[in-house]
């Protein structure tokens, strides 16, 4: 088990909005091994970003982590004092934000925003050492040295995202969480940024959690993938297993609905409406839209079962 870097067990995060309680993440559990790339995929409102932010303990009111455990090595991050947690951030777990467009401080030069990270983790280095580290980082993410003294508004979208990647690997963390890092970028720039991230991640032997809704990106980048629906993890497995033999009906429909360059003029959507998180459907949240729904699917909540090593699914079809 020592190869497990991060274990998330039964994580629950609820948002207490005036309109009622939104169960954004409702009992999410998964395992992350050293150097492994795990994808968390799901449509909007599935709770994947909430899960990622919860691991970094960045959930702000009205959201609150109701329960569960997040084990980094043997430390439960949820029990750490805020000062200890602050030290963990970007030292052991780092984040590549979704909107790179405005994730950089607009009135601060790029180099200062990078050295900030080192100074915040009481790395007392000389000015020269810091400058050298910045140059080294920029080279790693294929950015010119002049970028260091530029301001964010002088950079293109792709370049800003590369700066975020550089910041994420500054303190050589064990885990990198990438929350839809390229959703705002063009497909050409997206590929270049993702391949830079892959190269750096492999050099660092860091693990990555890639949160996103683009199944294509998942197929190209991650080793194993977890599919989320209405705040719950409905399927988990290696990327080949999940894409080639999806078990959960939702995953099957999702993969079937993906446009591909083979089929022309043939469209297959998922009928019904995306679930409301305020009052989700009873029992299995997918039952109103599930073609293989059985009568008790609408009453009993399925639990996540390991049908074969490393292969999990949460559906009554697979319960004994």
């Amino acid at each position: 088990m020592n190869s497990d870097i991060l274990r998330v067990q039964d994580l629950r995060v609820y948002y207490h909005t005036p309109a009622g309680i939104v169960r954004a993440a409702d009992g999410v559990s998964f395992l992350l091994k050293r150097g492994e790339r795990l994808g968390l995929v799901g449509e909007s409102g599935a709770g994947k970003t909430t899960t990622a932010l919860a691991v970094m303990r960045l959930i702000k009111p009205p959201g609150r982590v109701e329960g569960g455990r997040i084990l980094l090595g043997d430390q439960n991050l949820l029990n750490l004092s805020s000062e200890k947690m602050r030290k963990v951030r970007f030292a052991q777990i780092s984040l590549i934000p979704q909107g790179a467009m405005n994730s950089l401080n607009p009135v601060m030069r790029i180099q200062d925003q990078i050295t900030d990270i080192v100074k915040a983790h009481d790395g007392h280095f000389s000015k020269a050492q810091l400058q050298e580290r910045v140059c080294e980082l920029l080279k790693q993410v294929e950015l010119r040295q002049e970028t260091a003294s530029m301001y964010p508004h002088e950079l293109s979208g792709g370049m800003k995202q590369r700066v975020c990647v550089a910041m994420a690997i500054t303190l050589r963390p064990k885990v990198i969480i990438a929350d839809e890092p390229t959703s705002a970028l063009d497909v050409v720039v997206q590929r270049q940024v993702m391949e830079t991230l892959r190269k750096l991640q492999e050099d660092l032997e860091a693990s990555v959690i890639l949160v996103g809704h683009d199944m294509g990106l998942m197929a190209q980048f991650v080793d194993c993938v977890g599919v989320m629906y209405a705040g719950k993890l409905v399927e988990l497995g290696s990327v080949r297993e999940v894409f080639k033999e999806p078990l959960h009906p939702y995953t099957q429909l999702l993969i079937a609905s993906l446009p591909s360059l083979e089929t022309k003029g043939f469209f297959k959507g998922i009928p019904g409406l995306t679930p409301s998180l305020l009052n989700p459907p009873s029992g299995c949240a997918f039952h109103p839209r599930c073609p293989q729904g059985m009568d008790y699917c609408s009453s009993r909540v399925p639990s996540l079962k390991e049908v074969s090593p490393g292969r999990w699914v949460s559906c009554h079809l697979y319960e004994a």
Partner: protein
Amino acid sequence: MTTLLEARHVTKLFGAGGGFFSREKTVALEDFSLAISGDPPSITAIAGESGSGKTTLVRLLLGIISPTSGEILHKGKHLQRMSREEWRAFRREVQAIFQDPFEAYNPFYKIDHVLTTPIAKFRLAKSKAEARELIENALRGVGLRPEETLGRHPHELSGGQRQRVMVARALLLNPRIILADEPVSMVDASLRATILESLLKLNQELGISVLYVTHDLTTAYQLAKNIIILYQGCVMETGDVERVIKNPQHPYTQLLIGSIPHPDPDLRWGQHDDRFKPEEAPRGMNRGCKFADRCPHVMDICHDTPPPLFRTDGSHAVACYLYRESPAADDATNDCEY
């Protein structure tokens, strides 16, 4: 025969006006031509990244903004020189669907407002009952149950539902052509297919031409019959979608198609092709081919004059000097058989 909708050598510059000194002009669209005949009703895709000028093109074709140079014609008549009557006919025959389902509804009104207004404005129905009838048919036409949709406020419907109501709105006026500006990019994958399907149905069953503007080449391939690839306001490649996607000739199109993440673990990205220089700081105004400073096959001529369209075979033209032996295509890239 006059074309349904045509753009002739249209260029659009956005000078950040205001103040006493107009700052640098940015090129949104440069010498763009397009002709849509309307019969047979076809589906043409305009593919390009953000900043390639796609949305500017849609606004030009709708007459919301006017071109800096060149003209836009509806049935041979210039948009800027139309009488009130001609403009109403144009407005009725050329409709659109916009990208953001959340922005398309006035929060002050129920969603019915977006359906009742066109009926009133174009006097499509003589009585309230007939109007109600028209609306319900249009909603059923896009797979929505009227009793579940009408009478609701916009924030009570999901993104997918709202976008389908937009398609119904366009359907109401039974236009000759619908300009769909990234209709599915803000909708969840599972609902994307249903909306694309309704667009295809409009074309096949009701004979409505569709101009599908998108950054997603896969859906463009699935929906359209022919395609135009745009980069920084210029046409890079155009032609039958089968040829352009399966056998791309322009270096930029090759880079685009090579970068698509296919949802199939066995179809991994080609080995990292780092000959393409990553996109640098925001682009300036260069004279020659816009892709020159990133293109691995760049030649001197590429920096001097922008390459014209060369016809490489029947229905496939590419704006790249690599194909300068091929005959120059006639300037109007139109959708009917070449």
